[in-house]
Every structure is written in structure tokens, then in C-alpha cells.
């Protein structure tokens, strides 16, 4: 592995009783990379994310963030080390206002961290994610697609170096998906963030990322550019009958 990986998983295994959800997956993510993770249902994508963000302690293997060994540490340590994440089902603080939801991260992991002017304060983050007009509304009152944006805003408020996005485009309309992809590109380009993006809709994802990891039954079966991955016979077999058969 190269020495300057921002986040590195070494032989990470997560077992639930007899089920091996993630099976000895190794991966390293360099600063500024935009990486996608795909895989059929139950491939272990979200479990892998949970391990990468400290939400689940891996059964075996090691996780390093920015050179620090974080295996088995609490999630707040990951956040303080610059690893931020969103959840598949938005987990916003429903009773708090949109602005207070964003402010939460600024008060904890984001506090005292140097950040781009785009993440200067609550107002600038709300502008970045396009929710400035909803700032005073309770988070429970905004639309589900706005809640997905708010999830990203909450994660950005921790002023991270790396952002883990779990199916942020699920359930969005085609134009909303385009806007989301543009936002994600912008986060990478202007904030110099490393972005790791899980999406179930493979074609959407392959269009926007530069590198893609394929998980199947908990194992990593491919890791390369989208063009390489769609030609990989193992990937084609894993996805047989799924949307991947007609590559983008």
C-alpha cells in the first residue's frame, strides 16, 4: 500500500454470528479520490462503511485513518480524524431546525478544525448544499430528498477530509440525481475531499466516479476504473441479469 493513504482497510472482516458480511477486504483511499463502491444486494457495502466509520468494530483486520490506527475505537474518534459519513436512511435530528442540524457537527468534530471558507459556518454550509431557504424549518418538515442533502451538510460540518456517502441518490428523480452528482464532484474539486460513494444504481455511479470497488458476498472482486470493472468477467457474473449487463 502507498504510504499516504487517507483511509486504509487491511483485511477487514465483519462477522455476524455465522454470517460473514465482509470478508477480508483491503482497500486504500488516496487524498482527493472519488471512489464508488458497488455490489448486488447483501454484498456487504453498508457493513463495510460501518466498519470504515467505526460504527461497527471489525471482527478481524485493521483500519487506519490519516496514518492513525483506529481499529476498535469509538465513532467519534473517526470523526475527529476527519472521517465523516451519511446514513442510507437519513438520520437527521428531526426536532431540531435544519440550521441546528448543521451546527451540531460544527460544535463537535468540526470545532477548531481548519476548513475551507465553504465550510466556514452554518450559513456557508447551508448555501453549499442549497438548503439556505429551509434553514429555520424543523428537519422533520423538509422533503426526503432535502433530508439527504441535509445529511451531507451535517457530515460536512465535521470539516472532514474524507466523506463516506451511503446511497445518497436513492429515491431521487433523474434531475435530482444529476444535481447530487454535481454537488459531490464539487465537494471533491473545491474542498479537496476524498469521497467514497456507495450506490445501488450502478449506471449512475459509474458515470461519475474515477475508480470503483466491487463487493460480492462480502469479498472484493474488482478494483479499478469503471471501464475496466465493467469488462471484468467476475463482475459480469455477479451482476448477471442485473442492470450492469448493459454497461454505460
Amino acid at each position, binding site marked *: 500500500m502507498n504510504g499516504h493513504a487517507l483511509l486504509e482497510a487491511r483485511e477487514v472482516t465483519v462477522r455476524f454470528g455465522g454470517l460473514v458480511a465482509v470478508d477480508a477486504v483491503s482497500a486504500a483511499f488516496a487524498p482527493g479520490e472519488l471512489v464508488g463502491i458497488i455490489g448486488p444486494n447483501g454484498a456487504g457495502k453498508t457493513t463495510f462503511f460501518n466498519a470504515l466509520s467505526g460504527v461497527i468494530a471489525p471482527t478481524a483486520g485493521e483500519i487506519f485513518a490519516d496514518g492513525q490506527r483506529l481499529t476498535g475505537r469509538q465513532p467519534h474518534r*473517526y470523526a475527529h480524524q476527519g472521517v465523516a459519513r451519511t446514513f442510507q436512511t437519513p438520520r437527521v*435530528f428531526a426536532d*431540531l431546525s435544519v440550521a441546528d442540524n448543521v451546527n451540531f457537527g460544527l460544535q*463537535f468534530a468540526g470545532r477548531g478544525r481548519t476548513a475551507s471558507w465553504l465550510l466556514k459556518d452554518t450559513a456557508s454550509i447551508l448555501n453549499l448544499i442549497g438548503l439556505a431557504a429551509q434553514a429555520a424549518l424543523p428537519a422533520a418538515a423538509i422533503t426526503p430528498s432535502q433530508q439527504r442533502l441535509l445529511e451531507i451538510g451535517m457530515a460536512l460540518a465535521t470539516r472532514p477530509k474524507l466523506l463516506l456517502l451511503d446511497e445518497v441518490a436513492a429515491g431521487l428523480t433523474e434531475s435530482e440525481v444529476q444535481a447530487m452528482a454535481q454537488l459531490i464532484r464539487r465537494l471533491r474539486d473545491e474542498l479537496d475531499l476524498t469521497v467514497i460513494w456507495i450506490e445501488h444504481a450502478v449506471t449512475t455511479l459509474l458515470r461519475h466516479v474515477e475508480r470503483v470497488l466491487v463487493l460480492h458476498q462480502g469479498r472484493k472482486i474488482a478494483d479499478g476504473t469503471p471501464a475496466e470493472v465493467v469488462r471484468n468477467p467476475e463482475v459480469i457474473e455477479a451482476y448477471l441479469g442485473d442492470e450492469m449487463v448493459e454497461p454505460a
Partner: protein
Amino acid sequence: MMKKELLILLALTGWALAVPHYGSEFAVSMALTCLMYAALSSSWGLFCGSTRYLSLATSAFFGIGAYTGALLLETTPWLAAVGLGALAAAAVAVVMGAAVLHLRGTYFAVLTFGMTELIHHAISYWEKQVMGTVGRVLTVVPDRDTIYLTVLGLAVLAVLTSIIVRRSRFGLALAGIGADEQRAQTLGVNTRLVKVLGFAITAAFAGAVGAAMSVRWTYIDPATVFNPFIGFQTVLIALIGGAATLWGPLIAAVVFSLLAETLRLQAPQLYLMSLGLLLIICVLYLPGGLASLKRETFTQWRADTAGWWRGLRTKQGDA
């Protein structure tokens, strides 16, 4: 907003200060009960209301404070004994919290109750087997006004702490834990530390109140000071008042002590029945507690009336 809250607190303190000078013995006793539950429920709500960890361990901390105070009172000044009672309870809370605060909901509630019983019976056993006598008579007891002022001070301190914590990052962390603990963690909150600290603050108040109140009884034994009813009543008061609100526990503490002191002696069944009835009404119709009655119901009612009045006047203008 904070200024307003402090002013209300100041006014209430003034009223409470006046009671021993003008009130009858009965009124003072009632006010003391009221202040005791105000302190217990406010500090309970500070941690349990915002994080939604339902602790039934108040009696344990109360009892530990009472015993610590009783042991020290002959050799230590009054306020130091109360302070050490608080410290002892907080220390036990840190240990207990580290053991059970990773559990949620019913498991947490049941375990805190179990630990209270464990401490209660451990002390009974120790007294029986090692000391040879159960309970102890308190010989050095401060006068009534000192006790009253101390409990009043604790109640004011509990509300003051709540006011300050609500505006602090610590309070935000507690609220985040209550809303979605894991989400708060991924946003950088050291939830274990925050929970243990919050639990210890709650316990310290219960311990101090225990130390201050036990002297009123002149004789204490484990069954009196570890009485689970103290813990239940604290929880009920906080829930009925609105555990997540600042004034809710205080309002309910007043209602309760009025009920307790007037009904308990004449009609004990009626007292428990009204307790139960109040809880049922609050759970069903006022999940935010009595405090939410003031905030939402009345402002809505006022807005409706104002709207109706405006409508009436424009209609008159048209005609």
C-alpha cells in the same frame, strides 16, 4: 431568554425564602417536600429527560448521600457533609454508569433499579453482619431553617445547572444522544464520556438532597433512605411535568407536594389514585408534560382567538 429564566428563578427563590418566616409548621414541611422533589426531578430531567435514559437509581444516590452525611455529620461541618454526600453518590454513579450506560430503554431502567436494590441490601447486610445494628440515630442535627435553606439552595442550584447546561455544548451533546445516539457519535460526540458525566451530575444532586433530608428523620435505616418510592416519585414528577423541559419538573413538584401533603394523611388511596390518573392523562394527552400545556396549548388558543377576533372585525368593516 436566559435573562427571563434567571428572573423567574430569582422570584421563585424569593417566595421560597419567605416561607419559614411567615408559613405555619405545616406549610414549611410542605415547602420542604416540594423543594426536595424540585431538586430531584430537575436534576433527573437534566440527564434523563434530554438523553431519554430512564434511570430508576435516584433512590440509590439519595440513600448513599444520606448514609455518607449521617456518618460524617458528627465530625464534619454541615455543608461539607452534604457536599461529600454528593461526591459519594457521583462516584457510585460513575462506576454504575460505566457498567450500564451502554444499554438503552427497558434494560437500562431495570438494571438501574436492580442496582439500587443491590446497594440497599448490601448495606443492610453489612449493618447486620459487621456493625451488629441496623440503622443509626443521628445525634448532631442542624435546625429546621438550616435544612430548609440547604434544600432550597440545592433546588435553585439544580435549576440553575439546567439553565446553563441547556445552553452549553454539553447540553447539545445530551440532546443529540437523546435524538440519535449513533448519529451524534459520528458527528464527533464522545457519548460514553458525556453520558457518564451527565449521570454523575444527576447523582450528585440526589446524593446532596439525601444527605440534607435524612437529618429530618433523626433515625435512618436502609429501608427508609433507599425507599424505591423516592426514585419512582422523582421519575413520575419529571415525566408528568415534562422531563425535557426546564420548568416542567418544577411545576409538577409543586402539584405533587400539594397532593402528597394534603391527601396522603387523610386519604392515602386517593393520593396514589390521583398520582396514577395524572400519569395516565399526561402519557396519553400530554407527552410533553404539564410544561407543554403552557407552551403549545395556550399559544395556539390565543392565536385562534386572535384570528377569530380579526375575522369578526373585518366582517364588520365590510358591512
